[in-house]
C-alpha cells in the first residue's frame, strides 16, 4: 500500500470520516494528545522510523501530505 494511502486509512479510522483532502489540516478537529500519541506510534511502527523530539512541529504532521513528506525525509 502506498504511504499516503496508509496514512489516510489511519487518519480516517481515527476521525471517523473519509471526507478530507491530502492537504486538509487534519489536526484542526482532532488536535489532542491522544491522537498525536497514536499518530507517532503509527508512524514509528508502520514505517520503521524514530521520530525525534526536535521534529515535533505541528507543521510536520498537520496533513496527509505533510506526514508523507516527513516520512519520505526520514527514510531517504
Amino acid at each position, binding site marked *: 500500500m502506498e504511504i499516503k494511502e496508509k496514512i489516510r486509512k489511519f487518519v480516517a*479510522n*481515527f476521525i*471517523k470520516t473519509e471526507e478530507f483532502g491530502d492537504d486538509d489540516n487534519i489536526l484542526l478537529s482532532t*488536535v*489532542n*494528545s*491522544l*491522537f*498525536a*500519541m*497514536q*499518530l*507517532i*506510534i503509527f508512524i*514509528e511502527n508502520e514505517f520503521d522510523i524514530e*521520530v525525534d*523530539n526536535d521534529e*515535533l*512541529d*505541528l507543521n510536520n*504532521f498537520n496533513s496527509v501530505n505533510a506526514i508523507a513528506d516527513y516520512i519520505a525525509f526520514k527514510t531517504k
Partner: protein
Amino acid sequence: MKIGVIGAGVIGTGVAHRFAQYGYDVSVVDIDPGKEKVMRRNIKNSIMGYNLVNGGEKKVDYKEVLEKISFSTELESLGECEYVIENVTEKIEIKKEVYLKLDSICNENCIFLVNTSCIPITKIAGYTSRKEKVIGAHFMNPVPMKNACEVIRGCYTSEETIKSVSDFLGSAGIKPIIVNDMSGFVSNRVSHVFMNEAAMVVQDGVASPEDVDAIFKECFGHKMGPLETADLIGIDTVVYSLDVLYEYYHDPKYRAAPIMKKMVDAGQLGRKSGKGFYNY
C-alpha cells in the same frame, strides 16, 4: 523523594510517568521483565504526543523523565519508598499476595496507595499491619493528563494519611476527591452501569456504538461516550470490574453484558489491542 509503583500496565505506566515528570524518583516493579521496554516506549510516545500538541517552550524532555524511573521484578526494591502505589490486576487474590509481601518489605512509615476501581480498601488494609496507612487512589486514564483522582478513605485510614496523600498528589498536580469505602466507590459504581447498558444496547441491535456514543456526546455534552470509554479502559478491565461489583452487591444490574465477555474471549480489548467497539 523515592516512591514505588507496582504494576507496569497501562495505569501503572501512566502513574510512573506522571510522578517522574514531577521530579520524583520512581521505582517500578512488575513480575514481567518484558514490561520495562514497553513501559519506556509508551512513556516516550505519550510525552512526544503531548509535545506535538503543546509544542513551544512547554516541551517535556522524555529522556529526563525516563531517567527518573528504575525498573525491577522484585518487590524488595521498594524498601526505602515513602509512598507505594500498587496497580496490579483487579483481583483480590493477586492484590492480597502483593500486600502480604509488601508489608514486610517497606518501612513502617510507608503509605500504601491501592489503585483500584472496585476492591474495598478496608479489605486490603486487613492484609497489612498498617491499616491506618492504607488508602485508595483510583487514578484515571490517561494518568499524565488527568488532574483529579478519586481517593478512598478506608475504615481505618487515618486523617494523617489522608492529609499526607492529598499533599503528595497535589505536588504532582492532582486534585484528590475524597470519598468513603464501598465497592466501586463513586466512579465505577455509576460509570460501569452506563458502559454495561451501552454494551447491551449494541448487543440488542438498538444502535451502533457510534450512535450510542453520539447521544452521550451530542445530547448530554459528555466529552466521550460510554463505549469509547470502555475501549480506552480496556474491555477486560471493565468486565473484571463488573464481576467485582456483582460479587460484592449481588445485584443483577452489575451482571457483565455477554457481548463484552465474548469480546474478551476474542482478544478484542479496546484501544490496547487495536480493536474493541471501534477499530484503532
